[in-house]
């Protein structure tokens, strides 16, 4: 992995492991309530909608729409060099179901709010697969 940039990484626990490791199977996994079918992110032990407690990690379509973005030019994190595109994407599975991520394989000048995206994963240390997003050529 020597060609990958340094990144600050999440600390895995029972709640977040499915999200951060699902990329090993090519899946973007979000908790979903078995009772009322609400997608719940960030993870919770109880469904905020129906208070059900059966919330298995569930694969999403991997598609998303760009909700907003910024091209970061300032070196906030030593070793993780700008410029890079930070994005908030919304998943089609549910209104308001969003992730903060990076938009990759897209020149900053080609970024457009509303553009169709699909997930791709960056394999990191300890089985972590960071979900990044790129333009969806099939849309």
């Amino acid at each position: 992995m020597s060609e990958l940039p340094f990144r600050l990484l999440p600390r895995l626990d029972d709640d977040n492991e499915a999200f951060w490791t699902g990329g090993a199977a090519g899946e973007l996994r979000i908790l979903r309530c078995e009772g009322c079918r609400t997608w719940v992110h960030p993870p919770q032990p109880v469904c905020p909608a129906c208070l059900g407690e059966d919330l298995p990690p569930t694969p999403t379509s991997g598609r998303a729409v760009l909700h907003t973005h910024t091209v970061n030019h300032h070196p906030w994190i030593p070793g993780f060099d700008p410029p890079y595109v930070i994005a908030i994407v919304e998943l089609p599975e549910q209104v308001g179901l969003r992730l903060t991520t990076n938009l990759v394989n897209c020149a900053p000048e080609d970024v457009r709010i509303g553009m169709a995206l699909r997930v791709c994963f960056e394999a990191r240390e300890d089985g972590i697969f960071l979900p990044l997003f790129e333009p969806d050529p099939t849309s």
Partner: protein
Amino acid sequence: MNIGERNVCITGVGQSAVGRPLDRKPLALTADACLAAIADAGLTRDDIDGLATYPGGALGNAAPGFAAGGVTEVQELLRLDLDWWNGTAETAGQLGSVITAVGAIAAGFAKHVLCFRTVWEASAQGAGGRRGIGTGGGGGSGVPRFGGEMQWRLPFGAASAANWIAMMAQRHFHEYGTTREQLAWISLNARRNAALNPAAIYRTPLDMETYLGARMISTPFGLYDCDVPVDGSTAFVVSHVDAARDLRHPPIRVEAVGSALRGRPSWDQFDDLTTMALRDASAMMWERTDLGPADVDVAECYDGFSFIALAWLEALGFCAKGEGGPFIDGGTRIARDGEIPLNTHGGQLSAGRLHGYGFLHEACVQLWGEGGERQVRGDPRVGIAAAGGGPLGGCLLLTRE
């Protein structure tokens, strides 16, 4: 409705020297501001029976110099006997600490609460420039892993509020057609006012060409959309109105407070990223008064990043939702002689990042007519101090008797 805050007022304000950096320890700056506020009210240390701050000692290391001293350190320093005290970051923005003190006084827990906020970011950052929140580790082994809410942003390099709020601004640009040339007027207006404020950090004129040509930080924010870290401390004495009658100043009554957060407390999950908690805090404040935006003589609104001040103007109802860009364009409506004078001291963009408390300080200065060269004309009696951005926002509507 019980509007308990109407029994509470601000009776004194104080501020230390403000600089980047100052050769003075942060607790000494805190003492300077606190003692000045107590004297400004016409009180002594013995009169103070409450103490409050943001963000409190526990969050002091969130970023270098972000906080310098919690409640217990200042109680020890000034040897205060306290009936009530509170220091926390989990509140309605920086001024949430003051709103909490207002509540304590209204409930009868204390008569005179000293509120303070000290920053030491200029000294703590040194020559190294600004860093992200919680990113002190650097590369190599032994780098900490992140849980909690920061785990959802830090892996993607979204390490600063500059990034999170830039994305709010970008969404606003997309939905409403707002432009950088419009947004610039928050910064240009601040600098114009700072030129008349001897305590401001940056006082030389700033023009549109320089603003647009500055290096980008996080699009659409360039350097002049970001506030300036400083060393400094600000303090207030917040009092019960029954204990405020014979003090030095005419009391500044708290007409209404806004502390609401009615959406999800998240930088990316909130339903409307173009406003967030500012919408809710403003709505609550206006629900608690018969006054309205047209009654306000001066507005001091948080500008840690330029866009936040625009978002406050919309949320507070000085213009319609989405119309903030055209409203501030040209800088006439928000000038000191305009419809709604904004950030008359220069804001955090030019006067320095005193982190929320500077706005309440300036609102009181203006309502007491002590603004000197920058004093707004007429006889301002109604002011707003609003602070915070994203899921953190709080505001106070103030009236001078």
